[in-house]
């Protein structure tokens, strides 16, 4: 046991204590934190913040700590989206914001690629998938626009120090099984609000073995578990990913949970995990892929911050390559919306995009698009298998579509066969 002066702390507690200017914080206490970085996009950001700032007659607390990403309504498809994006661009210019990424990709993927994240930071995002930043050992969570206004004006925000749920993954994932499957399995087991707005921490050998982008998939879908944050203690994988993004002075030491810190631990065996699929209309409606029999699919969607990063595109391409397929199953439409320009460019250079196009894939803009029903909506009545995070009724723009969530491996295998398919059958 540690002494009263230095109680054992979880990673979440250490991150919050630092932001609150404290040595340590106790679970359940409400503290005020200094925000290191506030990220928002065209939908949650300027169009909502600008009028409220004007109403208050207030200024932005620190422009260098703000990142604006245009990803929801770009490319503009109608007058409303043109208006919304124009507000964002005008405001960025007016305010002379130093960090603006317009049409570069989805905020949660662009933010680390542009070197804005590092271990130890306390960040907020105007989007529910903001826990993605936790993969880098930063405390990051989503907030609404009004609360973002509070941050933008004061630079501060309150949090109730969360309990930590440690998701400890032993063993090793089989080929064709990925972080998305781990996450669907955890959400299925805990439920959509099983995280109870606590901090989830992913750990264990199987998590350590994941690439940075796969780790981001875990943290990203902490939102679907109802957690506030989804943390992964930084290590050499993190250091390397940060260096690639131009961050060379990151501190990774000390940003982990003390051995004897209080947490609720759930153990999982990665080696025993089969590919998972979440049936309509909830990400918690999860079963192993072999439980889906002959479910036909008409649309395969590889998109979103959750499921169209470079590693996701690589996974899908591997399935297609292994199958040696020249075309998809009859009647299947494959749509691919890479998560960022950088990821798409790298995928181009690796021949992945050409392979996808040759199969007849429709390549969509690097934006949120159909995932949130904001654009490129899917057809009514279709069975859709998607790499996205949510399959709520109507979420993708059609109330009659049936959306199944799965990994990029499973989505690719299903596009090849025209029915929900275990990718291990193709990769074997």
């Amino acid at each position, binding site marked *: 046991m540690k002494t009263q002066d230095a109680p054992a702390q979880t990673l979440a507690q250490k991150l919050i204590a630092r932001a609150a200017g404290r040595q340590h914080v106790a679970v359940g206490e409400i503290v005020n934190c200094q925000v290191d970085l506030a990220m928002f996009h065209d939908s*949650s950001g300027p169009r909502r913040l600008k009028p409220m700032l004007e*109403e208050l007659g207030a200024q932005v607390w620190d422009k260098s700590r703000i990142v604006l990403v245009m990803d929801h309504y770009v490319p503009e498809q109608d007058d409303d989206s043109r208006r919304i994006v124009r507000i964002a661009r005008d405001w960025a210019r007016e305010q002379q914001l130093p960090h603006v990424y317009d049409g570069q990709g989805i905020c949660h993927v662009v933010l680390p690629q542009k070197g804005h994240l590092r271990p130890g930071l306390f960040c907020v995002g105007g989007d529910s998938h903001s826990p993605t930043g936790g993969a880098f050992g930063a405390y990051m969570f989503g907030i609404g626009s*009004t609360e973002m206004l509070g941050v933008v*004006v004061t630079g501060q925000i309150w949090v109730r120090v969360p309990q930590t749920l440690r998701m400890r993954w032993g063993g090793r994932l089989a080929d064709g099984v990925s972080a998305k499957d781990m996450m669907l399995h955890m959400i299925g087991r805990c439920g*959509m609000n099983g995280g109870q707005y606590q901090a989830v921490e992913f750990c264990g050998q199987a998590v350590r073995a994941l690439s940075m982008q796969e780790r981001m998939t875990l943290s990203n879908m902490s939102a679907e578990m109802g957690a506030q944050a989804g943390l992964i203690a930084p290590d050499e994988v993190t250091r390397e990913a940060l260096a690639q993004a131009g961050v060379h002075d990151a501190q990774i030491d000390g940003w982990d949970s003390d051995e004897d810190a209080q947490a609720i631990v759930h153990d999982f065996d990665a080696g025993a995990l089969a590919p998972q699929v979440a049936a309509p209309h909830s990400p918690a409606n999860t079963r192993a892929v072999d439980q889906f029999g002959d479910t036909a699919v008409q649309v395969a969607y590889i998109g979103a911050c959750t499921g169209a990063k470079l590693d996701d595109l690589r996974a899908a391409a591997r399935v297609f390559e292994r199958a040696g397929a020249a075309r998809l199953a009859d009647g299947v439409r494959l749509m691919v919306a890479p998560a960022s320009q950088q990821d798409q460019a790298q995928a181009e250079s690796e021949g992945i995009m050409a392979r996808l196009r040759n199969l007849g894939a429709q390549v969509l803009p690097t934006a949120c698009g159909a995932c949130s029903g*904001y654009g490129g909506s899917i057809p009514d009545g279709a069975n859709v298998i998607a790499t996205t995070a949510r399959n709520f009724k*109507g979420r993708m723009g059609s109330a009659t579509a049936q959306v199944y969530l799965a990994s990029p491996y499973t989505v690719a295998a299903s596009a090849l066969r025209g029915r929900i398919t275990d990718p291990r059958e193709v990769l074997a």
Partner: protein
Amino acid sequence: MSVTHKVWKLGADIDTDQLAPGAYMKLGIADIATHCLEGVRPEFAAQVRAGDVIAAGANFGIGSSREQAAGALVQLGVKAVIAPAYSGLYFRNAFNLGLLLLTCPQAERLEEGESITLDLPGRAVIRSNGERLACDAIPDFLLEMVRAGGLLPQLKKNLQQRKEPS
């Protein structure tokens, strides 16, 4: 005589896409509100009256960070939501917009259309038959925020006070 509130009864897992569908997110809150809950209760937006309350199952407000999912209920005049559990993100958004959320483990006892009263100091929902349903405590600063009408009016007040000479 305390004010009574009519109950709209909903199930569990009411998500933000049901409260504020993505397809209408381009619009202003008044227009979004006309589509609020149209997937589960098509008549809700047209028939809900100022002062009504929603009683729902667990996990109310799961999903997106879009605060319009709370704003639509404010716009329609909903006085409070009563449910056993909320999405944490929705919980923050609601109070920031001045919408009262009561965490009530027995919310499911409430019936469609019944009239209830709220006893905030006593932390209870009182049913028409007199039954009291206990609610969890809400931190004082959040109750103050609801009383002020949300974070924006509160910030405005604070900034004005700071500007006034002492």
